[in-house]
């Protein structure tokens, strides 16, 4: 009775994002490099923090829910600089 599983990408495609060309969140990879806990990687509901093989983190802002989880769980001062996107941009939840 298993449900058909969908990929994470398909999951994210169910939400609408009006992407602005400028990133509203900037991650400083230098600060992240020696972080071993990596709370953001687990907690971000949009899975936007991706560890790289060389021990860094790649961050994509495009499909962000703007929830704030990443900067609140982050223990590193200055690692994540977080703003809301330009007016009219970013996530748009559906009307029925």
């Amino acid at each position, binding site marked *: *009775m298993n*449900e058909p599983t*969908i990929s*994470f990408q398909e*999951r*994210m495609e*169910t*939400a609408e994002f*009006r992407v602005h060309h400028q990133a509203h969140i900037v991650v400083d990879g230098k600060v992240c490099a020696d972080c071993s*806990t990596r*709370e953001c990687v*687990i*907690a971000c*509901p*949009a*899975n936007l923090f991706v560890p790289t093989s060389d021990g860094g983190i790649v961050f994509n802002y495009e499909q962000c*829910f*703007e*929830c*704030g*989880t990443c900067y*609140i*769980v982050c223990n590193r001062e200055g690692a994540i600089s977080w*703003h*809301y*996107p*330009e*007016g*009219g941009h*970013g*996530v*748009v*939840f*559906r*009307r*029925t």
Partner: protein
Amino acid sequence: MSTPDVDVVVVGAGPAGSCAAIVAARAGLSVVLLERGPFPGSKNMYGGVVYPRILDQLIPNWWEEAPIQRWVTRRSTMLLTETQALTVDFRSEAWGQPPYNGATAFRPDWDHWLASHAEAAGAQVLTDTTVVGLLRDSSGAVTGVRTDRPDGDLTARVVIACDGVNSFLAKEAGLYTHTDAKHFTLGVKETLSLPKEVIDERFAVRERDGVDIEIIGGTGKVNGGGFLYTGLDTLAVGVVLKLPKLAAQQQRPEQLIAGLKQHPAIAPLVQGAELKEYSAHLIPEAGVAMMPKMTMPGMLVAGDAAALCLAAGIWLEGVNFAMASGMYAAEAAVEAVGKGDMSAAGLAGYQRRLEGTFVLKDHRKLRRAPELVLSDRVQHLYPPMVANVVERMFHVDNPNPKPGLRRILDQERRKAGVKRRDLLRDGWTGFRSFG
């Protein structure tokens, strides 16, 4: 000092902001309601149930026009272990008739509707506009906001910050002393499509009647809770997760939703339903323990921005606290503008109203509840203990005779590793909060 552009700027067209704008505009003040999304509600998400009685005076007979999905006539509280489920289920015909109780609704619909009332009352609703900071005078009093529009400064006699759980305005003004991850939970939700007839049949409801299921113990090792709500032809299923635990347990949010959906008590309810939208939002979970100062010269803070969200296990309410605090903030702003006194003293009517109504009375009464509900014992030890007690009570183990309840209780308590002292203490905390 030059004349401000408007009497009141409200930041954020969620339930707090729109109710504030309605009250201020109806009192004859000039009001601008700013919204950073393309329409009010576009950034907003919650589990799914609103308790709108606070609107009785603001929008009489609101139920005739409010964009609700279903009226909650069945409320279930579910305790889950991996293989067991204990449900307390209540239903009432009264909750399906005016003036109703709870309703399921989508926030983009609900917030859009409330903002249309603000507009009708005379407020100017400005969407696609992000507020990037406060304007303040030399004494530190708030005199307006800076937006991301060209020449986007907007001066006002009073700013009402309803800018949500992350409230950068309250933080910029220093009203929050610190931000602590343990005060927040992350809510993640799947909106699933399912034909109305199937929902009616599975959940044993008719017409616009709906079900609200609150779940404890369905989030694995991560402290939190689950929910399942019925829309008209959708289900909302999701989990609420304590942030530090989520990060520590190495389980991702969508995996925890998947786990809940696979539980034997939940799977038959959601079977075959297709994902329509995945969404997420932070919840200011800790109540009184995290609340900021809500009044300062020239500015008031309402709704989630002021952590006015009640997460007390069996009671999960936020939109009603937002709507009420927005209304009270605007009433205080109207008084202050009338007196020409925008100092903290001039705006003191806000705190007085919060203290005098359910907004802070409920929060103070339940101030210990959020921590208790999310504690390790309530989350991980009590559910299996209680479920095992019930299982043994109803398990007919012939030829053995029925064991006494007291003996079962004591055995299961010990098996779960629960100290009698802790059980009594938690029971007392619960009784003082909920009793």
